[in-house]
């Protein structure tokens, strides 16, 4: 079933990401996504960055034309919604390492907040291209997480990828679980890191989606459908797949290298 709502707030989080807030009552779990319909244009899967209460939110990164047009919505603009779809992060770990690359923080921040509210300790490795693109840096700090940063250009934190930071944090602390979201190549490295240390890793995977209800096969990843089997996967289920971090499928279902 589809609902049409008016956007109440638009927040430019970073130069490339915008948060839209809107009233939506159905409960949404950490990790789940909504299909956001821009009438007359496109419908896109978006993980929910504000999951609690009646005002939900999604945080959109400018990727293609459609996501840019979603970003251009102003307060009072209408969007269609269906969902939530997909599974959720298990909130039982007591000591969490969160590894976020770019807009991956959109799904990890609300999940980490919920884990904090249940008393978990949260350590975050946050990566972005440059300082201004660090998504939800303050939000992670406000929830009482320890945050370490990496930027490609070294404008804040360590210069380079976020995975070496994650690796150092994993070596220095004891964690019950690692949550990660970002490019698949990054998540694969995080998966290897968890395997090395014997810490379970959970990846939130993003793939092209059409139906979102497990029929159309657009989001097929090996034997899984990201929309119904995911988007959260225990990393061990992904790392052996020929396609994880190597191939994605385009709108025609063609396998294409990342």
């Amino acid at each position, binding site marked *: *079933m*589809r609902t*049409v709502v008016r956007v109440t707030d638009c927040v430019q989080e970073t130069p490339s990401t915008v948060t839209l807030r809107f009233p939506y009552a159905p409960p949404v779990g950490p990790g789940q996504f909504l*299909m956001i*319909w821009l*009438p*007359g*244009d*496109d*419908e*896109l899967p978006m993980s929910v960055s504000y999951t609690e209460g009646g005002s939900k939110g999604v945080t959109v990164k400018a990727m293609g034309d459609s996501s840019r047009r979603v970003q251009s919505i102003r307060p009072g603009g*209408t969007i*269609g919604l*269906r969902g939530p779809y997909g599974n959720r992060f298990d909130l039982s770990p007591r000591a969490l390492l969160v590894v976020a690359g770019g807009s991956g923080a959109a799904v990890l921040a609300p999940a980490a907040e919920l884990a904090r509210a249940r008393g978990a300790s949260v350590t975050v490795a946050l990566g972005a291209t440059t300082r201004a693109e660090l998504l939800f840096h303050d939000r992670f700090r406000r929830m009482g997480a320890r945050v370490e940063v990496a930027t490609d250009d070294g404008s804040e934190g360590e210069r380079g990828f976020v995975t070496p930071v994650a690796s150092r944090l994993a070596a220095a602390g004891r964690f019950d679980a690692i949550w990660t979201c970002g490019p698949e190549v990054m998540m694969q490295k995080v998966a290897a890191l968890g395997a090395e240390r014997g810490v379970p890793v959970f990846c939130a995977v993003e793939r092209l989606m*059409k*139906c*979102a*209800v*497990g*029929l*159309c*096969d*657009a989001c*097929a990843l*090996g*034997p899984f*459908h990201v929309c*119904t089997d995911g988007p959260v996967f225990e990393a061990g289920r992904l790392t052996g797949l020929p396609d994880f971090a190597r191939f994605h*499928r*385009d*709108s*025609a*279902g*063609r*396998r294409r290298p990342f």
Partner: protein
Amino acid sequence: MADLAVRVAGLALRNPLLLASGVWGESGESLAGAWKAGAGGVITKSIGSVPRAGYPNPTVETYGQWGMLNAMGLPNPGIEEYPREIEVAKASGATIIGSVFGGDADEFARLASRMEGTGVAALELNLSCPHAEGFGTEVGSDPAQVERIVRTVVDSVRIPVIAKITPNAADPAALAEAAERGGAAAVSAINTLRALAIDVRLRRPVLSHGLGGLSGPAIKPVGLACVWQIFERISIPVIGVGGISTPEDALEYVMAGARALEIGTAIAFEGIGVFGRLATGLSSLLDELGIHRLEEAVGVAHRAGAA
């Protein structure tokens, strides 16, 4: 336990429950997954001559448990790249039926021949997609054209050819008769019913394409009526499709005349485990009714006659 094995269109199927075309069939891994979940065979996404992205989203509208509207727009990787997916599916041991769509008889024949070369067991011709300009229903609504397409394909391949016909025609059984004259080994019916959803707040159709096709439990009585009428007018087997989600639904189609069945939308409601549950449930239902082999039940409702 009652025997669910059936023979249809020259194929020996372990059970009559086939994965319907368009569902789970873009990737070989998914086809293999449906087979491993207990499908009696798997039908590929309809494959065309060139890669096709399909329509922009929204491509589906959901209606709780009673149905689903879609206009995917025949997305597919194209016949050049699709053999990789068949290879992956074949490694699972699946019985694979290759679905193709073309704009005319010659295009169908070229695609069918390429598809045969991948090693599929049979072909299904998509003469019935209700929402793609120049394809599907647009080439499958005229009996003469259906006969010509089926004959051209049958003359160019050795494997059995199944014609999937549309319910969006005045006399679907006439299309089935045309397929039989053309040499089809079986007819599958029905494809989705042409349908529409409008968002009243936005005053516009929901799907980007406007018109789409309705599937799911809502269309089961329509599919049953088509299978019933087709069964009375042709002598080749009928494959029943449309809203099957329980063992009773499946047996209804069989008693109306279907020798095999296709399952699609039920996967959205129940997951791929629906194949295993339907097979077990159908077998139990036959036991309860004292029917030893599913094939004994094909078309039996016709013998009761009409009052």
